[in-house]
């Protein structure tokens, strides 16, 4: 019996040492990994809309809280949803390229892990927002079903408005450039016609009025509208010497096609005059 026990001691000791060292290693390894994950720089900066929403949600816990109506919470949640959607889109768009970079060895494993963590967090946040939307929805409107649709639409609309704003600035530059150019040509034209520009400018700033006064036939009905048309006509006729090729088209008052007509209809009319 004693002999039997003695022969069992070495293998048991061996197994105990192996299991023990493995357990220590794994616990240490896991601890380090958790530490690394915790110390990882977040993929996205802290989201203010999330903080605002959660603060509003938790305000009742603070001393003498204001009563936050649900409508404010809904607005805050919608803003948080737009934030989340934007991040989810970024994640989805960067996943493929990042994977390629990882395969080529251009980015390290830590970046990839960071990215995977961000992805998980965003997924969790989407779920959270959906749950909260469900809690805030009413019987008539199951908000969780379309809060993200609304949020995504808000993002596209924001981008569209931004783009339009940029385009508008560009357009204004064009208008300014053209205004200066026509102004220059017009003053040259007036000078060549022998009109004392300087004197007339002292009287009226509007060059159209100068022109109407030099064209007695037109002065019969000097309505505001006519003034504009005359100015425009004059500008066109002034423009022609500058560009002799354009002068061949007769510059009458255009009738134009109706804007709602068929594309070819309104366009063809214009062509006919050329």
């Amino acid at each position, binding site marked *: 019996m004693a002999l039997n026990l003695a022969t069992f001691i070495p293998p048991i000791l061996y197994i105990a040492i192996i299991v023990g060292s493995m357990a220590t290693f794994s616990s240490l390894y896991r601890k380090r990994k958790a530490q690394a994950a915790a110390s990882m720089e977040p993929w996205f900066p802290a989201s203010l809309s999330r903080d605002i929403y959660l603060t509003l949600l938790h305000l009742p816990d603070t001393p003498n809280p204001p009563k936050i109506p649900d409508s404010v919470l809904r607005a805050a949640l919608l803003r948080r949803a737009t934030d989340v959607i934007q991040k989810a889109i970024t994640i989805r768009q960067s996943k493929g390229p990042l994977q390629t970079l990882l395969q080529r060895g251009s980015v390290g494993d830590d970046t990839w892990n960071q990215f995977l963590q961000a992805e998980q967090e965003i997924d969790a946040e989407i779920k959270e927002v959906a749950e909260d939307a469900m809690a805030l929805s009413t019987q008539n*409107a199951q908000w969780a079903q379309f809060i993200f649709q609304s949020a995504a639409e808000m993002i596209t609309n924001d981008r569209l408005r931004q783009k339009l704003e940029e385009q508008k600035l560009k357009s204004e530059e064009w*208008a300014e450039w053209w205004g200066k150019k026509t102004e220059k040509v017009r003053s040259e034209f007036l000078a060549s016609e022998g009109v004392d520009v300087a004197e007339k400018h002292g009287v009226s700033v509007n060059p159209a009025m100068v022109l109407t006064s030099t064209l007695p036939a037109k002065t019969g009905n000097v309505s505001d509208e006519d003034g504009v048309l005359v100015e425009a006509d004059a500008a066109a006729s002034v423009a022609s010497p500058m560009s002799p090729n354009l002068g061949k088209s007769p510059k009458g008052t255009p009738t134009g096609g109706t804007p709602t007509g068929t594309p070819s209809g309104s366009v063809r009319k214009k062509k006919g005059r050329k």
Partner: protein
Amino acid sequence: MESFTLLPLTMEDSSKSILPLPTTVPIPDLADHLNELNSLHRNLLQFDNAIPPPPGLINPKRSAQINKLRESGNAAFRKQSFGDAVKLYSLALEMCLGRPHWEQSALVREEASMIYSNRAQANIAMRNWAEGMCDAEMSCGLKPKDNVKAWYRRALCLKEMNKLEDAREVLEMGCEWEAENQGKTDGDLRALLRDVLKLVEEKEKASL
């Protein structure tokens, strides 16, 4: 993600708007965020329970108003009072761009591109080439496909402003977008392109 920063916020009772409490360390962007939140909240109050409807549901009143303004713009154009037409189109445009952001952006694109195109035509009729070019450019940018009129107007304005190279570029781009309907709708574009090319050639000859 289990934690969050508790922000110093309070609510004004009368207007239900959220305000920041004074802090020693100012939080960047907080005021902007709260402003946006408050304006969104005010806009949402028009709905039951402040839930915006899904993007597919459109406020029919606004669409009707936009259409009405555009129609009266067209009527003014037909009566050749182009200044009025431009004014009416501008109003319609304002209504269209003022659509709430949770409504479909595709609709805004569609409507705005049409109104811009019409306003371009009215500006062309008044020989405001620069304005016409800008409007047509907006229209093309919003809806490049199936918008042959806007492409034509944009190029026409550029040509009239003696920007032949730009006009040629625009026409070529327009032709590319219209390639699907080749031979059916892009005839005018091609005719104008031929004109412009001829002008460019003449100009080169003259400068030689």
